[in-house]
């Protein structure tokens, strides 16, 4: 089955919409639209990105799959009913700096971890 599905797409790819592989997509965060602009001074918006797409066989190395994801993907490709495919998730995140007003109306600079997706992968 794995072998068939490995090449199935190329031959049968015409009718079926080829599903997007796991990758990083834009996600524009606007704190004003979130209603947070009464305490966040800057930035009022930033590019956070998000991960989207399928983790299907064969997994590309840049998706940095865990061994578990490799096994899960292989089993899913052999028998989709046995297990779902592995998940497309952030594999590297970076912080952003935020200047905001705290409960005492003081101005605070804080570095918030894990606010921007740098890379996506299958886990």
């Amino acid at each position, binding site marked *: 089955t794995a072998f068939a599905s490995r090449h199935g797409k190329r031959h049968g790819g015409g009718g079926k919409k080829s599903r997007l592989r796991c990758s990083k997509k834009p996600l524009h965060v606007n704190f004003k639209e979130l*209603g947070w602009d009464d305490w966040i001074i800057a930035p009022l918006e930033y590019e956070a990105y998000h991960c989207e797409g399928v983790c299907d066989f064969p997994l590309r190395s840049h998706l940095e799959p865990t061994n578990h994801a490799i096994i899960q993907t292989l089993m899913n490709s052999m028998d989709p009913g046995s297990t779902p495919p592995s998940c497309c998730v952030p594999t590297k995140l970076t912080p952003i700096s935020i200047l905001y007003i705290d409960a005492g109306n003081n101005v605070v600079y804080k570095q918030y971890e894990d606010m921007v997706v740098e890379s996506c992968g299958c886990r």
Partner: protein
Amino acid sequence: FQQASISSSSSSSAELDTTKDVRNRKEGKMSRAPRESSAGRTPRERPEPRLRPEQEPQSQEREPPGRAPRVVPHEYMLSIYRTYSIAEKLGINASFFPSSKSANTITSFVDRGLDDLSHTPLRRQKYLFDVSTLSDNEELVGAELRLYRRAPSAPWGPPARPLRVQLHPCLSPLLLDAKTLSPHGATRAGWEVFDVWRGLRHQPRKQLCLELRAGAWGEPDAAAGDAEARAGAPQQPPPAPPDLRSLGFGRRLRPPQERALLVVFTRSQRKNLFAEMREQPDSVEAAGDPSPGAAQGSPWPSPSGAPDIGPWLPSPGRRRRR
């Protein structure tokens, strides 16, 4: 290597825009085309907030009803934000900067004290700060008091004698820091920065009171001293310390950007900083308060797009400790 710090200029929003450009350019998204006027921008590319420098940092500009009053940040905090956020986008960890003292949180408090003019000459000044919002579960890694000294209108003492000013906790002999002001250097206005970390470390995190005292005159400058000796002038006893206002420390009619600022550097061990706000001891949602009034709904915007108030968000119009 290029110094990543940014001079604190008033065109803050332009630099904030630069921050965004740096990120986009790094992503390869930004064309080098000149920036079109904001009118031509699609809503998604709204420029960074226009921080109006003439606003009072502590004065609560009247916001439309239902909105918490807006505090305008001190120029120093804006320059900290600009420096570290651009460094972040360049992949430089902000904690590498000595000035950040490896902190990931920098909180600024504006002085609430006033000069006690019943005493003239004014040889002591009390600076008062409400530091009750400092979280106890964050590690204090540094604290400094920034005093803006105006250029004195007239020379304040014997031309050749430097003057020491000292900083103590109020009603305490503990010397936190001292500065020697040389008569020559004092002709220019500028910021005097005192290290007050020791004063905050043992202090219960409520009100912090610091006292600036005009200390003793230093020894006359070597050259000038010899000139005095050669002139055969008898050694005059040093005059009494001057009035702090003649040194440029007077606080009357100060614009907000020149008011004294306490800057506290802390490091939070917790990775997820937003959760920290949710778990503030007195935020009702975190306590699972059963009363219907406390239920603020889910923290995520409701399908209608109007965001419910999350556990860490101030409800519109009412400021809540987060």
